[in-house]
Every structure is written in structure tokens, then in C-alpha cells.
């Protein structure tokens, strides 16, 4: 057991760090205001404005609001759950390469950066679709809008997470082939 822990200490440490980040992140996200989530809501609102042609402006205590679209990007729309899932999945996927402290730190930082970037992209897509559903651009007929919003969120986030993980795996394999040559 001790030999196993010693041989895999950096991987175990990285896993512990990732789990702590997720647990702490979840606690932080629960009570965070729109202002405190500006680091992710602000760029998301700008991307959504660019993609949908809308104009989201910050309103303290509420979030990012587009009055013409009658849509609010509130703290619940920040995508922090997706970011944490992405970070954890990328960390798990990169564990095999975390054989030294430096490699573990570099891979954790890379996972965090990729998770943040992917969250902006996936969350922008999610919100753009939600706006289209809200405005009736996508016709739902008589289906409950709340349920559609829930299902849309699940499919976009899970599909985005799988795509991100597959993409990271492809980068990892290409990196290994480049090193082997």
C-alpha cells in the first residue's frame, strides 16, 4: 500500500486537489452573487450578445439583462457546475501523465484553463438556445418550456463535456505520437 502511494503520490495529490476544488467550488457557487461571478458571467454575456445579436448589460443584484429579449443571465446560468465537471474529467483523463510534481501542476493548470474556455463556449451555446426557445424562434408547440429548458441544459452540458473529454484525449494522443517520433 505504501509503495503504491509512493509510486503514485503526484497522481493522488492531483486527484485530491481536483476533488477539493470541486467541493469548494460547489459551496462557493451556492451563495455567489452575480457580481462575484463576474469572472465567468461577464465574458459569457459578451459572447451571448455577439452570437445572438442581443445587448446584455450588467444590473447589480440581478445579473446580465437584455430588456429587449426579456432575458436574464443570472448566477444560476454561470455554468460553474459544468466548469467543475470539465476540470475534474480533464484531471482524471490526464492522471496517467502526472508522474512528477511539475507535470501534475502543469496538467492541472491546463485542465483549469481548458475547463474555463470550454465553459464559455458551451454555456454560450446553452444560453443562445434558451433565448431562441424563449423567443419562440424554435417552436415547441405545447410542450412545457421549463422541461424543455431542463432537457436542453442536460444535453448541451453533457454533450459538451463528452466532446471536451474526447478532444483532450485526441490532443494527448497526438502529443505522445509527436514525442515518440
Amino acid at each position, binding site marked *: 500500500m505504501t509503495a503504491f502511494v509512493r509510486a503514485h503520490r503526484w497522481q493522488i495529490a492531483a486527484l485530491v486537489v481536483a476533488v477539493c476544488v470541486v467541493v469548494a467550488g460547489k459551496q462557493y457557487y451556492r451563495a455567489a452573487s452575480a457580481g462575484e461571478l463576474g469572472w465567468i458571467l461577464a465574458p459569457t454575456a459578451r459572447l451571448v450578445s455577439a452570437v445572438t445579436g442581443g445587448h446584455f448589460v450588467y444590473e447589480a443584484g440581478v445579473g446580465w439583462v437584455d430588456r429587449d429579449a426579456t432575458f436574464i443571465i443570472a448566477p444560476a446560468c454561470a455554468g460553474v457546475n459544468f466548469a467543475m465537471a470539465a476540470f475534474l474529467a480533464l484531471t*482524471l483523463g490526464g492522471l496517467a501523465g502526472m508522474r512528477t510534481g511539475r507535470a501534475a501542476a502543469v496538467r492541472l493548470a491546463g485542465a483549469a484553463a481548458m475547463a474555463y474556455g470550454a465553459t464559455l463556449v458551451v454555456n454560450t451555446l446553452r444560453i443562445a438556445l434558451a433565448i431562441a426557445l424563449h423567443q419562440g424562434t424554435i417552436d415547441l408547440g405545447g410542450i412545457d418550456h421549463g422541461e424543455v429548458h431542463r432537457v436542453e441544459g442536460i444535453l448541451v452540458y453533457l454533450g459538451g463535456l463528452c466532446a471536451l473529454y474526447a478532444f483532450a*484525449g485526441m490532443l494527448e494522443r497526438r502529443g505522445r505520437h509527436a514525442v515518440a517520433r
Partner: protein
Amino acid sequence: MQWLVDRLCARVSRLRWMAVPLAVYLAITLGLPLANGAAVRSGFVHHAGWVVAGCAAIAICILIGGIAIDIIRGILKLRHHLGGPS
């Protein structure tokens, strides 16, 4: 038909990579809320049902997409062997 069954089995086994993102997604969306006592809240079971259904739907879509890619590759390979346009 046997070819399709073989491709299906091969594709299903190649879906193993999805275990990590699916497990992480379920842990974040269901596991953590359960640990925080969400099970007692009304609507959680309903939400959990949709989450599990979503996971199954994504897995099936990726499986079907992979099989479609295999079929297209098989057709292109056959055309190439039969001397069709490259």
C-alpha cells in the same frame, strides 16, 4: 448483417472512454446534491430521471454516429476497391 453486429459490438466497447465524463457529470449533478440532502426535496427524483435519460440519449447518439461513420467508411472503401472515383 454479421458485419453490422460486429461493428456494433466494436463500437460499444469503444464507448468505454465515455465512462469518465458520464461518471463525473452524474457525480456533480446528482452525487453532490444528494450528499447535501437534495433527495428530500420534491422534484429531485424527476430531475434525476431526466439526467439519467440524457446520459443514455448522448451515449446512444454517439454510438449511432460512430456506426454511421463506419458504414460510410465501408462504402468508400468498397467503391475504392471496385475502382470507383477516388
